[in-house]
């Protein structure tokens, strides 16, 4: 189905992390909140194969629970922002005129802000917690979907089958949902895959800055931030969460590349 083996590798990595996230409470060898201060910063051993952090908590168990936050924030933000963006893009592209002008100027305004800075500002105002991280990233995330969908709608809406549907008296809503949307779905799926990777990085960045999950919650970005304090004497505390973020983001990008090669007729592989 896919021409590159990297697509499959990406899918497998995502599947492994997703399973680890879903079954973390049963699979994790230790409680991710169980502090053993006497064993702080212990190096990897057979019992704790990624070692223990500054509070003596098992890093592997925290990583597994952290996957729940990273992946769920990634997927939820993309689902919500995708839904909003697709709706906006469909309306904007299909109707044109003033709805198009207003929506696209709004998109321009939001795109003019440096993304992460706006997210930091929003979370600072709303207060640091996961829900507000989702809100902030959604506020930013729908824009790229809206712009992509609008462009696709513009190219599709003049086709004969849309003309035919319109002539046969179908409602605008039905034309958009039943006739246009399925025909522009492929680039949207590709965009969604890349967006998940972007959101995971953004969530980790916000948590790294102390603007994500509350202190103590196992979150990859926060683990990386805690590790930074002791990076000279105990690099393993930051290496493992760093690797986890890198692997997942890379996997989503592999998958996105594969999907794009599969769906985009303009893209070819040498």
């Amino acid at each position: 189905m896919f021409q590159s083996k990297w697509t499959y590798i990406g899918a497998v990595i995502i599947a492994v992390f997703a399973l680890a996230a879903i079954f973390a409470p049963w699979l994790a060898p230790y409680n991710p909140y169980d502090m053993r201060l006497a064993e702080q910063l212990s190096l990897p051993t057979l019992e704790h194969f990624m070692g223990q952090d500054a509070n003596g908590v098992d890093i592997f168990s925290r990583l597994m629970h952290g996957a729940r936050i990273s992946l769920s924030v990634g997927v939820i933000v993309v689902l919500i922002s995708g839904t909003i963006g697709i709706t906006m893009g469909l309306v904007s592209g299909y109707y044109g005129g003033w709805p198009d002008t207003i929506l696209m100027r709004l998109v321009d305004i939001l795109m003019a802000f440096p993304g992460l800075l706006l997210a930091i500002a929003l979370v600072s105002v709303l207060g640091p917690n996961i829900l507000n991280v989702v809100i902030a990233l959604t506020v930013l995330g729908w824009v790229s979907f809206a712009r992509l969908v609008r462009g696709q709608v513009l190219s599709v809406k003049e086709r004969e089958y849309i003309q035919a549907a319109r002539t046969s008296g179908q409602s605008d809503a039905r034309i958009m949902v039943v006739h246009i949307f399925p025909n522009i779905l492929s680039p949207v799926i590709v965009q969604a895959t890349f967006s998940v990777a972007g959101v995971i990085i953004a969530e980790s960045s916000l948590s790294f800055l102390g603007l994500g999950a509350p202190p103590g919650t196992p979150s990859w970005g926060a683990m990386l931030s805690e590790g930074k304090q002791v990076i000279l004497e105990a690099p393993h505390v930051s290496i493992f969460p760093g690797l986890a973020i890198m692997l997942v983001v890379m996997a989503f990008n592999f998958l996105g590349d594969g999907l794009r090669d599969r769906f985009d007729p303009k893209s070819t592989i040498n």
Partner: protein
Amino acid sequence: MTYKRHLKTALTRYVCQRTGIIALFLIANLLLPPGPGWGEGAAYAAEFRVGLENAPKTLDPRYATDAYGMRITQHLIFDTLVTLGYDLQIEPSLATRWETPDDTTYIFHLKDGVTFHDGTPFTAEDVKFTFEHLMDETTKSPFAGTYKGKISRIEVLDPKTIKFVLTQPVASFLTSIILPVLPRHIIEGGQDFPTTLIGTGPFKFVSQSPTDLRFEANKKYWEDPPGCDRIIFKVVKDENTRFLKMKKEEIDLLVNALSSDKIKFFASGALHKAYQVIEEPGISYNYLAFNMADEKMKDNTLRQAIAHGIDVDEIIKYKLAGHAIRARGLLSPVNWFSEPDVPVMVYDPEKARQLLDKAGYKDPDGDGPRTRLTVEMKTSNNAEITAIARIIQAQLLKIGIHMDLKSYEWGTFYGDIKSGNFQMTSMRWVGVTEPDFYYDLFHSSQVPPAGRNRGRYINARVDDLVQQGRVTLDPDARKRIYSKIQTIVAGELPYISLWHLNNVSVVHRRVKNYRQHPMAGFFSFKDIRVE
């Protein structure tokens, strides 16, 4: 294809050229002798390099309220009338002696032969000007409130004698006047004071940038001239970078600017040959505060249960690597006023559970996951405070209390604390020397916005005692008053006392005569010699 080949050739040529240039540069580097300008590591013999975590907010002594700003202004650029010695007792400085003919009059005799950095002699007029200028509303100095309503008038008796008349007896008066004496001729004369910073101190201000502050010795200082020619403060915000700069011997001294994880590298091994670690009890105070106006928190039994559920010794041992001592109250044992015999809530989870039962918070499911109650703790997003709060959260969970930990950026956090929008919080007081601080923290009139009684602690007996402490001038009688206050507060637990951090200086062995002060100040810099 042709284009690609061209590109490749051009790239190869570019890389070769660049590599050649770099190689030549490296060879030249190896052949040339290292001069003083080569790398930051090369230091001048009499240059003393001190690392700071943050730049002082201002060096204008009228407005400097942050620790580094106050240390630099009080100990380096300027002098004060009196000072706090290494035993935290008042000692002479610009005032050689003083007398108190009655409870509200202080007459100070000033030192002869003292001049400002520009050569102008220092007189009693400068002292009078300093305090009147600080009290003047147009100056907008944060120190105005310290003197307003307390100093009735200041009289210059002669150029070297000055009289302060107070409105009422003020026991903390001598401590309260430890502020830099300003040059009247510069400020009144309309000259530029904030950038020249002319004082009488052992060091002259040279320059300031966001990353370094430079001072040079005042060779005409009224005591022995300083032992080093220059002091450079290097502002290095990141702890890992500070550590690496120490490792490269680019910094001679760090005071309380390394975590316990890093200090251990200087206490033994290779770095121990270059540096020594000086550790002594400090006077900072870490505590947990309750909002006594909160429905849950006003119950003393619950507060006691929480106090018995926190294993302070475990945190000191592992998280602070022993660089702190257990606190029994606001005043460190170094302080003469500290009362050692007060109730201490030792770690006793069983007793904590019994107290929770008594307070009506029964265990809903034995060993099950449900907790007895939830309390909310707000902290700033300072990494160290948050890390400690997480450990306390884990400890309280063991006695069945779910602590909902929320950390905010400073502005939001501080706003909530001042407005009483919290149940528990954890903070630190630094530089606590004067027991009159109990008035600020626990007198009922000091609930914000008026003062710093943020926990809304109201106790008529304590109100009465702190008021007495303010006006009792006899030190022994005053000590007895503060002993009573410390005992009451330790039992009523508006604060849970955690620890006093030790002062830890890591100092290069080429630096001689460095002495650590309980306030971690820069008192000994004028005596330092750099070999």
